[in-house]
């Protein structure tokens, strides 16, 4: 699908070179498309950026939803979420980079239509369900959502950042076990 191809190409360029450095002609060139044709699919670069974050949120949200629907303990879910996050960082590093380097860093781009959680809702809903069901099951400590969210996602984002900077001595997979254990211990009762 053309629309998805444009998003994928733009995602890689935005993640690698940054939002402002990347132009619509750069994206068109990569796809052998005319600039005008890209505008047929996305009215502006800002809208393209917003659609990309929705696409990433939906992609990750769908994976988390599958984990949430499994009849397993919160401890097992924690490990699976860490694994999915690191696998995505390894196989589609542009997705995580985009989230960290574009979505979180260029907030002004996401003002007109992506305020608050709107464009990352699918991902956030599944994270909330993971926490809520963990507390309900008596495994996780009841606390403020963002205290728990920051601990979980900040940790994972930090590890991916270190990997991206070439600081981590081992592959991300190597850390899955320990990190899942640390997160679960920190969040559990």
């Amino acid at each position, binding site marked *: 699908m053309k629309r998805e191809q444009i998003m994928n190409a733009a995602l890689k360029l935005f993640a690698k070179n940054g939002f402002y450095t990347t132009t619509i002609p750069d994206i068109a060139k990569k796809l052998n498309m005319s600039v005008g044709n890209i505008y047929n699919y996305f009215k502006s670069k800002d809208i393209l950026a917003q659609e990309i974050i929705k696409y990433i949120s939906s992609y990750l949200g769908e994976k988390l939803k599958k984990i949430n629907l499994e009849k397993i303990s919160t401890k097992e879910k924690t490990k699976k979420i860490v694994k999915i996050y690191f696998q995505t960082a390894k196989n589609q590093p542009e997705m995580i980079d985009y989230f960290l380097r574009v979505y979180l860093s260029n907030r002004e781009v996401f003002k007109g239509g992506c*305020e*608050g*959680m*709107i464009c990352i*809702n*699918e991902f*956030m*809903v599944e994270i*909330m*369900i993971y*926490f*809520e*069901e*963990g*507390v*309900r099951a008596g495994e*996780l400590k*009841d*606390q*403020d*959502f963002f205290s*728990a969210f920051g601990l979980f996602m900040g940790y994972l984002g930090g590890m991916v950042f270190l990997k991206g900077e070439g600081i981590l001595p081992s592959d991300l997979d190597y850390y899955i076990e320990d990190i899942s254990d640390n997160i679960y211990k920190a969040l559990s009762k």
Partner: protein
Amino acid sequence: MKTKLLWLSSLTCNGNAHSFLNYHELSLFLDNFEFIYHPIIDSSYTLDDIAKKDIECDILLIEGAISKELKKGDISVIDMIKKYAKKAYRIVTVGTCASFGGMFKNKGEGLHFLQERELEEFRYFKDKTVSVSGCPVHPEVLADTLYMIKRGYDIKLDKFLRPKEFFSYTVHNGCTRNEYFEYKIDNHNYGEKEGCLFYDHGCQAPYTNGSCNKILWNEVNSKTRAGLACFGCTQPQFPKENLFFTKKNMGIPQYLPLGVAKRVYLTLAGISKTFKIERLEKKLFDD
């Protein structure tokens, strides 16, 4: 011809009997109905007469939880229930204790249910029964149910035998705080006009079946309109604990609006919280 009512009190605080005194058309009601016995309204017979004599009765009203041990004087309440349940052509459980056990759920049970669990003992007259739950019963809902019975209406009931006419709604329906609910603004102090009480103050209206905000109490008000949370008093699980607090798990309410799936609720919540509606954040009038 007046319809003959027998009001039997079982294990009860008599709150329903008192609540019924607030019915705004009580004298008109008494032109149409006759209490052969009622604990506080003048009636034709004494409780002793009811127990010992064979008195004609059209509708049996039972208030209070059913307890096998309970006696009034030396009269077994359960024997009176059995006796008049046969004679009456309709039975009404008045209030939540008689319907589900309610406040007395540890000492007794409802006529057909203990909380949500259906009981066997009186199943043989379940087809006659209508449950008008509430703590206390809403006087107008009770009176209207009795009029519907008198006039021979085909009363549609929910799975707990409550008339759908009154219990297919939630208490949230008609609440004057709906705008605050929509945009997730609790921001409430008890008794004030502003704010929704669902998010922090324990309000159970979005998942409680009842008409309190459609048929107002004393024709003027409801708990939520007055600024107090709905405690879910018509529900089988009533009373829950910590009624003034919303039970949450990591910020997400444990009990969600009736029939709303968690993913749907959270999606809408995420969007609603994005908006900052200044008009709703501040006092309605601050001059």
